[in-house]
């Protein structure tokens, strides 16, 4: 393998235009670059010359290494924040920085998680099914009326916004702007979404202000939503004001954009694979969890996460020092043939327990059961009410290498 090939593969992972112009046959991902790096350069140091990003990070691409680091929270800290991107509210060195689940290790992470996790257990989430189904029916009703539309905005955006709005306890009339702030924050490389850094900072400020305001209102009430639980923990002195705001920000940012990406990539690939669409249609009365997880795998809504070494260590001959940032590359791990059979194929019946999109360690996605139920219910309603879903024009990807937005996915619904 020539040094030029390896250098080109490394560069592809962090070039937003590579993702904007991604190949739909490869899920919009630089799969060939991942394969080169997994085989020949499984741990390398990458420098970044961009004030929005960390200065340098080790990049780890094999499923085995990604899983091991993700599961070992004692050797790999969260204290520096979870992303390559320095989101202001997740950056404790920034004036807007707030401590949260995603900037904290044990025992603080456990203390914070325990104020929120009851609302996210499978049993509690299952109780939401009827409400989710009502949202899904309304979304499909409206979509059928419009007929031809951008699936990303019309369907994939609305479902998580309403469902998560319910779980978190964001009033219906505030949901569009609440999740809108996160969208602005999460797409710093796409001028169509985020025109400038100032706009992103203003969105960040607005999100934190709103979180404090809503938290303040919920300290007394008896509601069972997650923000109310956080607010009561705050009133009881179990979490600080800053932790309340930080965690509301984390809940907002983890929730909507990622599920929208998974639904959009999932639908896009179903349109490309008629036999997989037919398989799912046959199961529209009870969409299997495996199908949902396969969409979460191929979309990998967060392409990589950051960790920080808590001690000097060595990996594939590289010396990693205490405090160094390591990027565990979830998208590459999700397509590693050493862990996942025929990873480049969409297979809705695949074992759902292999992908790393939700994380596999103590910091694994708090909302994974909510996301899975939202997607299942929406797919069931959509497939039952349509005879066919057909492409209605060229699709396009978002310009980002950290999150995985689909920008445009025009479709036409043919009613059942």
């Amino acid at each position, binding site marked *: 393998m020539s040094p030029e090939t390896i250098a080109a593969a490394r560069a592809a992972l962090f070039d937003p235009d590579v993702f904007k112009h991604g190949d739909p046959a490869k899920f919009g991902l630089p799969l060939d670059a991942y394969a080169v790096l997994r085989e020949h350069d499984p741990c390398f140091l990458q420098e970044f010359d961009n004030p929005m990003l960390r200065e340098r990070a080790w990049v780890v691409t094999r499923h085995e290494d990604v899983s091991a680091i993700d599961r070992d929270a004692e050797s790999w800290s969260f204290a520096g924040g979870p992303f390559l991107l320095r989101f202001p509210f997740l950056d404790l060195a920034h004036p807007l920085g707030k401590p949260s689940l995603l900037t904290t290790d044990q025992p603080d992470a*456990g203390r914070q998680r*325990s104020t929120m*996790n009851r609302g*996210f*257990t499978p*049993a509690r989430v299952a109780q939401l099914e009827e409400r989710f189904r009502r949202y899904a029916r309304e979304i499909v009703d409206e979509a059928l009326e419009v007929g031809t539309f951008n699936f990303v905005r019309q369907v994939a955006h609305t479902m998580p916004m309403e469902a998560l709005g319910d779980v978190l306890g964001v009033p219906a009339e505030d949901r569009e702007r609440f999740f809108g702030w996160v969208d602005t924050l999460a797409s710093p490389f796409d001028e169509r979404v985020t025109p400038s850094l100032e706009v992103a900072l203003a969105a960040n400020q607005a999100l934190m202000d709103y979180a404090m305001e809503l938290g303040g209102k919920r300290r007394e009430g008896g509601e069972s939503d997650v923000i109310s639980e956080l607010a009561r923990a705050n009133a009881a002195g179990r979490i600080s004001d800053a932790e309340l705001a930080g965690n509301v920000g984390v809940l907002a940012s983890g929730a909507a954009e990622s599920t929208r990406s998974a639904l959009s990539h999932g639908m896009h690939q179903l349109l490309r694979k008629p036999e997989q669409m037919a398989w799912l249609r046959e199961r529209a009365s009870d969409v299997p969890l495996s199908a949902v997880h396969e969409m979460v795998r191929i979309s990998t809504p967060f392409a990589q996460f950051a960790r920080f070494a808590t001690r000097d260590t060595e990996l594939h001959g590289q010396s990693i020092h205490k405090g160094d940032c390591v990027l565990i590359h979830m998208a590459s791990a999700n397509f590693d043939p050493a862990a996942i059979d025929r990873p480049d194929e969409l297979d809705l019946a695949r074992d759902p327990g292999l992908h790393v999109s939700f994380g*596999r360690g103590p910091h694994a996605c708090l909302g994974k*059961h909510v996301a899975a139920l939202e997607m299942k219910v929406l797919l069931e309603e959509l497939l039952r009410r349509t005879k066919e879903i057909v492409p209605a024009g060229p699709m396009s990807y978002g310009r980002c290498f950290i999150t995985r937005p689909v920008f445009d996915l025009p479709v036409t619904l043919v009613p059942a």
Partner: protein
Amino acid sequence: MRVLVDPRRCALHGDCTVTAPAVFEIRDDSASSVVRMPEPPRALRAAVEEAARNCPTRAIRIED
């Protein structure tokens, strides 16, 4: 086979209750996943092993 959940490690991720619902349960008032069937039959062994392997906080132990 005997199944144990360490309540100090469990953080209510709940994956075990999806993988092996006959064996694990999280009730509304429980602070950790509860083993409702401490000695599951052989037929459930694979599911229990998967739950233990995938537990994000390594809170599940199997004793033979």
